[in-house]
């Protein structure tokens, strides 16, 4: 495949007018094996994501893109990322009504009862790539770990399938892939971000709700995002050092 791509580009001899960043990105792709790409040094990055709830329209494109990109089973109860819809009665904030039919894969249908007093919004969720991951802590064999660039990954060739990590994740981000009998979860599209691309969900998000963030890159927009918004993470009481930062996260979100 790489060969085809290379020969095609060579044969056409097209003059490529690209921005510098795009050129680097494509070079990574062309390099095939990302570790051969000279431009990626894992210690130069510290990945996370910003999610702007005020922008999310609940279209589910990210959920579909994630399943496509990462070959996630098309089951209604296996997701690397999913979207929840919250309906909050301001007078009863402790009991939000939440739905996430098929994880938001098919988008959200209009609710029948439209009470103008209710607050509604969408919350996209994914692995929080915690700095102090409970899942990494409990893995008995080192089959799930935090990469040097801060991504929580699974070694499917080493995972026992004991499921302790599934129990330990406070956010419900892990599931067992029935095809491999090992645990599966969001890798923050590690195969993409190490090639200079963004994640599939960020790539396809039409409203710019989800943006991949490199906290070690001083020029990354994440710094402005964190500075200019009131930012919260999910379940801060869990003290996991979550690196998925939400703008506009309502206190009723669990």
């Amino acid at each position, binding site marked *: *495949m*790489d060969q*085809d*791509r290379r020969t*095609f580009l060579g044969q056409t001899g097209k003059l*490529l*007018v*690209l921005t510098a*960043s*795009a*050129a680097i*990105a*494509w070079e990574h*792709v062309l390099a095939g*094996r*990302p*570790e051969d790409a000279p431009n990626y040094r*894992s210690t130069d990055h510290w990945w996370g994501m910003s999610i702007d709830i*005020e*922008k999310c*329209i*609940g279209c589910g*494109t990210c959920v579909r*893109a994630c399943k*496509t*990109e*990462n070959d996630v089973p098309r089951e209604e109860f296996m997701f690397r990322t999913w979207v929840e819809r919250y309906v909050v009665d301001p007078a009863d904030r402790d009991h939000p009504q939440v739905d996430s039919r098929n994880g938001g894969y098919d*988008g*959200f249908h*209009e*609710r029948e009862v*439209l009470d103008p007093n209710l607050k*509604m*919004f*969408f919350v996209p969720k994914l692995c929080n790539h915690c700095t102090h991951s409970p899942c990494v802590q409990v893995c008995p064999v*080192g*089959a*799930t*770990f935090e*990469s*040097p660039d801060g991504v929580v*990954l*699974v*070694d*499917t*060739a*080493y995972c026992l399938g004991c499921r302790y990590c599934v129990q330990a994740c406070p956010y419900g981000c892990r599931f067992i892939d029935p095809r491999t009998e090992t645990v599966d979860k969001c*890798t923050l599209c*590690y*195969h993409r971000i*190490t*090639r200079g*691309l963004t994640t*599939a969900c960020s*790539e*396809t*998000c*039409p*409203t*710019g709700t989800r943006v991949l963030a490199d906290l070690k890159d001083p020029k990354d927009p994440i710094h402005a995002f964190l500075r200019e918004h009131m930012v919260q993470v999910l379940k801060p009481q869990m003290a996991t050092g979550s690196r998925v930062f939400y703008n506009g996260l309502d206190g009723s979100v669990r």
Partner: protein
Amino acid sequence: MAGLFAVGITAFVVLRWLMVPADFGALGHYRASALTDNMDRPLVFAGQAACVECHADVAEVRAKGRHARVSCESCHGALAVHASNPAGVKPVRPDPRRTCIVCHTASISKPTSFPQVVPAAHAPEGSCAACHVVHNPKIS
């Protein structure tokens, strides 16, 4: 009995030396090659840069309108196969009604600032492209 225990412990040490993957622990308590295992997946979405490389003209049109920040594959779907083999794999043209409806159907749950219509009232049938330029949808 002590001998048995000694044999057992020795066997364990030898076994451990033989069976632990060589790269285990090089970077942390995991197989270092698990990193490359995670990197080595094929791309399915090619990414903006790859699309723009050939379709700079479309990108130029799009850059002037409200869809400037919507990436090509949001609507056109995953096209790494096309980017790798532009002549061989031709993408399917997105349905010019259903594609738009995915985002622009009115919903009380959506942020009010987002442009949304009730499709049945706005245009009961037909292609959205009949009135809108999809890559630069003017709001009239």
